[in-house]
């Protein structure tokens, strides 16, 4: 199901594609550095504001990442047929490669934001890492699924469709980051895992049922 050569190809393309890693990441870093100074004129922001803004940055960064290089349906079908790859293998391998590219960037972004604002989340590092991992997997799968089965006219349409879904995923993270007690945090994490499994099952079913 997960093919090494597809992951290798996706990583190579990403590395040579200067619109993603080399453009989005520095832009977001600049925003992170400038934001606290603009908002409160100092390198320290309130805890309540911090959580909201960190979630906003996460949504913004994920959206920028998702719309950076939209798939062309015709081109994709040609490529897959030319290489004798089935859609299911491509979907899962692409999901893994996107996760490998995206997850470290998101973690770096969150750490940078926390560092530059001298503020931190009230949750353990494991919970933060796991919640962001679930968020990334869900966001990547939903984005790929929409791109596989919908022909977007423009990036704006893609943006409009994707952002509300990402907001939904981000809302689930909020209680974890707010620092609720361990039992409730675990319940939220299991719930997030459940949502990830449902999305995985749905995409799997849809990919296998379409020709």
């Amino acid at each position, binding site marked *: 199901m997960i093919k090494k050569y597809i992951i290798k190809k996706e990583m190579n*393309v990403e590395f040579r594609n200067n619109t993603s890693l080399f453009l989005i990441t520095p832009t977001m870093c600049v925003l992170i550095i400038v934001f606290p100074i603009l908002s409160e004129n100092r390198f320290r922001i309130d805890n309540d504001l911090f959580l909201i803004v960190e979630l906003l940055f996460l949504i913004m960064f994920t959206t920028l990442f998702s719309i950076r290089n939209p798939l062309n349906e015709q081109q994709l079908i040609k490529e897959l047929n030319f290489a004798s790859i089935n859609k299911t293998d491509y979907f899962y391998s692409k999901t893994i490669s996107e996760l490998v590219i995206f997850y470290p960037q998101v973690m770096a972004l969150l750490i940078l934001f926390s560092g530059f604002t001298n503020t931190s989340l009230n949750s353990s590092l494991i919970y933060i890492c796991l919640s962001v991992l679930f968020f990334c997997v869900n966001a990547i799968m939903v984005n790929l699924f929409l791109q596989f089965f919908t022909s977007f006219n423009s990036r704006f349409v893609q943006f409009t469709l994707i952002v509300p879904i990402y907001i939904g995923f981000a809302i689930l993270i909020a209680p974890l980051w707010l620092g609720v007690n361990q039992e409730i945090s675990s319940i939220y994490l299991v719930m997030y895992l459940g949502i990830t499994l449902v999305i995985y099952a749905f995409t799997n079913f849809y990919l296998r049922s379409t020709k």
Partner: protein
Amino acid sequence: MSLFFRSKNLTLGYGNQLVIRNLNISLELSKNYEITGRNGSGKTTLIMCISNNFIGNDFNSNIERNSNSVMEIGSIPSLIPKLSLIDNIEYFLHKENIDKKNILNILKKYELDSFLDDQIEDFSSGMVKRSEIAIADLKNPDVLCIDEPKVYLDENGIGLLNDLLKKRSTEGNSSILSSQENSSLLTSIERSINLND
């Protein structure tokens, strides 16, 4: 007689616009076919449908196809522009365990051996087409569909394509070419599908 594609009353189009109406075709393995027609007659659409690359509206036409390997060299290149030629070859030939020596020999034949590490986006259209033909030569699919075979190719390139098509015929593989008029590249044509009719 083993068919790799069959359709009765094949109707294809984009949205509600019809491009091909009620076409009956049965294509057999190890035979060559040619598709001719004027601009807009549906040559590319038909070749994309045969090679399973069509994403328009097929109006629920009854299409039967076998699991033979079909490869299309079309007007839009299939190669990945951001990858080098060798990376593209490795990616597209991942299933076939082809010896590196053999790959280099074929690339030498197509005069591409000195561009191994160059990115496809830096290639000219003719070079991209040559690269795709070289990959088709290495992959040796059961059915090879080429849309406008002579476009972008120089005399030498057309000669190489001619050699490949002859080799495929002797090996018992099928080739399907589409062009505005008879391209004279195929020696024995089973059927010429004229879309002007």
